[in-house]
């Protein structure tokens, strides 16, 4: 093995086997069906391109959220973050939203970011709910650490889920005060926040894979 490969091996976090998120679909208010699924490292390139146009949009803090997602997805793609996952929301293959996070311990999850590329259909809310479903209902975790970097996020997560304030706990996104979604709070809110159906019909999967970029970004107008 070449020296460079040996060094790269040292740089990568140890690989754990983590149960994958089973894809689901949600009928949105427009009647369109959004597929929510976990993506592999090989699909990250297009996700980077999907958030790139929003990295300079100051409105609603899209710039910081998009830039951080770019960095986090790149970290996943290059094997620099341990046990990270990335979900895509797609409608007929068009990338309409992205969420990501990671597992810290078998009991503890770390929510990273949620971004809605298409607005007005509660896509961000549904993708956030999907990742919480992953942490609690699929992986059986007990708590997820959450921070918000925009007022919209604060309203959607901290207030609507009544998250528990735990500023003394450190979140990997920095010094922003940490809040916690506990299993108890998840059970209290999930019926009104989380929806979707499984299994996903083959034709719906086929219509959404591979994903493609949105033709326009309303946030930029």
């Amino acid at each position, binding site marked *: 093995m070449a020296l460079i490969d040996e060094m790269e091996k040292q740089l990568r976090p140890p690989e754990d086997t983590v149960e994958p998120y089973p894809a689901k679909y*949600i*009928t*949105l*208010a*427009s009647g369109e069906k959004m597929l929510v699924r976990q993506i592999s490292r090989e699909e990250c390139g297009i996700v980077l391109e999907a958030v790139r146009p929003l990295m300079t949009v100051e409105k609603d803090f899209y710039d910081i959220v998009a830039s951080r997602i770019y960095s986090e997805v790149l970290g996943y793609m290059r094997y620099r973050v341990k046990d990270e996952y990335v979900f895509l929301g797609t409608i007929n293959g068009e990338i309409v939203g992205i969420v990501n996070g990671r597992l810290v311990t078998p009991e503890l999850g770390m929510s990273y970011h949620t971004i809605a590329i298409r607005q*007005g259909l509660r896509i961000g809310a549904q993708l956030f709910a999907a990742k919480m479903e992953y942490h609690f209902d699929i992986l059986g975790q007990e708590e997820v650490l959450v921070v918000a970097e925009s007022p919209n996020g604060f309203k959607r997560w901290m207030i609507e889920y009544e998250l528990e304030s735990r500023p003394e706990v450190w979140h990997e996104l920095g010094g922003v005060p940490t809040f916690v979604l506990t299993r108890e709070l998840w059970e209290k809110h999930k019926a*009104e926040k989380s*929806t979707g*159906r499984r299994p996903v019909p083959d034709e719906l999967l086929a219509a959404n894979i591979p994903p493609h970029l949105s033709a326009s970004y309303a946030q930029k107008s």
Partner: protein
Amino acid sequence: MRDVGIVGVGHTKFGRWNGSYLDMASTAAVEALHDAGINLAAGEAGIDQLFLASMGAGQVNRISGAASALVDTLNLRPAMAETVENGPASGASAVKLAYMAIASGLANTVLVVGAEQMRVLSGWESTDFVATMLHPEAEYPYGMTLPAAAGMFTRLHMEKYGTSEKDLAIVAVKNHENAMHNPVAHIHLVPDLHAITDDEDANVINPYVAEPLRVYATCPMSDGAAALVLTALDTEREFAHKPVRIAGVGQATDTHVVAERPDPLDLFAVRESAKRAYEMAGMGPKDIDVAELHDAFQILEIAESEEVGFFPRGEGNKAAREGKTRVDGEMPINTSGGLKAKGHPVGATGVSQVVEIVRQLRGEATGRQVKDARTGLTTNFGGFGNNVVSIILTTKEKG
């Protein structure tokens, strides 16, 4: 009294306004003046009076005496200027006052602007701001909000008249479809009726705001401004457009506390304001070709359509179900998209409703034009029906 007509209309895109309050109000005003053929740059606007309608310029935007700021911004000095605050009916009240100023001979040409910038507030703060229109001792201090009032009203309407959540959704979808043809509407998205009512995911993607009202049965919070140029019809001054005559203006009040009404479902002030407008115009409901009704909540479009006489009491839901209120129906309502989809910057709404009717009567409502529309009605609903203004506009000669 002199007859009064509208010769200019202006309207910003409703939704989020990223500039200042005065920039927003000025944008609509300049468009209306331009539409009237008035050359503002020449310093000869000939505006005698400005009325600025706003519910929250002072409370939300920290601008007291906003009309004084706007008249100066527009370089219309020494025109008279007043700010008009009458809750969500501020806009139609400003139109009424403009009518009175001209009809009385105090003014010849008046500029009316309705402007509200609400999205500087969070959703909760906006709800609280709007709730300040409720009774200050009997309702507001107890946590009453407008969605709560509308939710209770809707529940009663459902029990008494069989209105369903689907009826409300039908009204919403119709208004969203209309808004797709209105470039100044806040929301350009048509919800799918099945998806927001019967689909397995409906409970989550269209959640309750105040049961039985869901997201798609309530209007959004919007910024926006609309403007009108009104003039005396006996003036020799020439404008770019033939005036659309204001044939009738009616206003009525009701108990401020909804619970004090003998029947909470009886929107007396809506009925009475429309009756007064009809009487003044010498017209009735059958003369109306198109109407803009105040659908801050979808139940209000149904209830108001009954109170203004378009449909018998308790049958507004059926009319909506049968498509009678669609653009191509027998009584088109809210062709602009209504408050539901065009948006509801509260103080601007009454002016915006008149703008839509003027566009309809001029034949300019592309994509949503009501065929052969010659007479239209607006109903601007203040409080929870405690102060309502109705206006009738027509292109028909006074008979």
